[in-house]
């Protein structure tokens, strides 16, 4: 486990592996989004790999169909979605939501910061929002899902700019291809963190004012 040992002999959690995973993922997105040669794009093996991922992850086809360079977009999104389970594993490995250290960190952190009312409100809203993302991924409800690409449904030219960006240029496509699987991994990790430690978050006492 990537937890460091501090001077008191306690394990200290670090988010460094998550940052490294994000950085590697960004390098991959930049490589496939900008520097992939046309020979590589038309390669039979790469095309079959991206088609396979597109069959599993509906988001890949949704994004590729509306992109300015569909073949490149399909490869980029497919590769980034391949990173999703790895990034999720790294989130869970470096920040195990079920661990005693995590619970202690939550107790320490939240007892020093926000008020009870605000914390409970944000907690419930977040569990609801992230839960709806996960249920949408599994097709239980038809709301907003990164996995299915339903956040980006609609005619790209009619969307607000923030949702239109991935369709307007290779830069936007690579940027969102990098961000969306990371966002998905975050949703699952954060949801697990809040649900597993719900009691700790909900029943924490009012923060002690600093003297």
């Amino acid at each position, binding site marked *: 486990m990537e937890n460091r040992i501090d001077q008191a002999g306690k394990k*200290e*959690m*670090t*988010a*460094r592996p*998550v*940052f490294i995973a*994000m950085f590697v993922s960004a390098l991959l997105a930049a490589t496939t989004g900008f520097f992939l040669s046309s020979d590589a794009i038309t390669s039979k093996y790469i095309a079959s790999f991206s088609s396979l991922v597109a069959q599993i992850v509906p988001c890949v086809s949704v994004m590729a169909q509306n992109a300015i360079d569909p073949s490149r977009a399909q490869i980029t999104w497919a590769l980034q979605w391949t990173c999703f389970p790895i990034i999720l594993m790294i989130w869970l490995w470096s*920040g195990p939501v079920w661990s005693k250290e*995590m619970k202690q*960190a*939550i107790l*320490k*952190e*939240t007892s020093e*910061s*926000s008020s009870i009312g605000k*914390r409970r409100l*944000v*907690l419930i*809203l*977040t569990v609801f*929002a*992230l839960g709806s*993302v996960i249920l949408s991924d599994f097709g239980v409800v038809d709301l*907003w899902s990164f996995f299915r690409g339903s*956040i*980006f449904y*609609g005619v790209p030219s*009619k*969307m*607000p*700019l*923030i*949702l239109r960006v991935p369709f307007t240029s290779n830069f936007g496509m690579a940027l969102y291809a990098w*961000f969306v699987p*990371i*966002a998905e991994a*975050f*949703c699952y990790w*954060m949801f697990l*963190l*809040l649900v597993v430690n719900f009691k700790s*978050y909900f029943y924490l006492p009012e923060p002690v004012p600093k003297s």
Partner: protein
Amino acid sequence: METQGVEAVSKLGVQYGLPSLLMDAPGGVGAAFALVDTGIAVANNNPQQAVVSGVGGIFSIGGAELGAAAGSLAPGAFKAPAVAVGAGVGGLIFGSIGMQVGNWINGAINTLSSSLYSMQWYINYPTQYSSMPPMQSGISIPLGPHN
């Protein structure tokens, strides 16, 4: 005294306003997207797109702030990545909801203006209701049966 006050406000704005817009990315980025997009739509005389962009942008600003607040629940070393990614997730989800709301508003405006158009026509030309010409974009007053 007044000059000092203006200077102090300017200083505060430069010292805290700009960095918070740039560094506190959640609301700042959403606001920039919304402003630029709505501005372009208005300049292109596309009110429907302006409504979608404006409402989508406003929702994405709020969503980014909510997402950042959600991410701040993550403890210790995970707070920084959770706040950053949470803001992005919130911005996208709420931007998507805002786009839908913008479309509903456009639909409501269309329904209302079309009803007003029909009503106006019926009041002006009660006997020629069947020959009402289709409503044209940007014209809310019926031109009459002979135009």
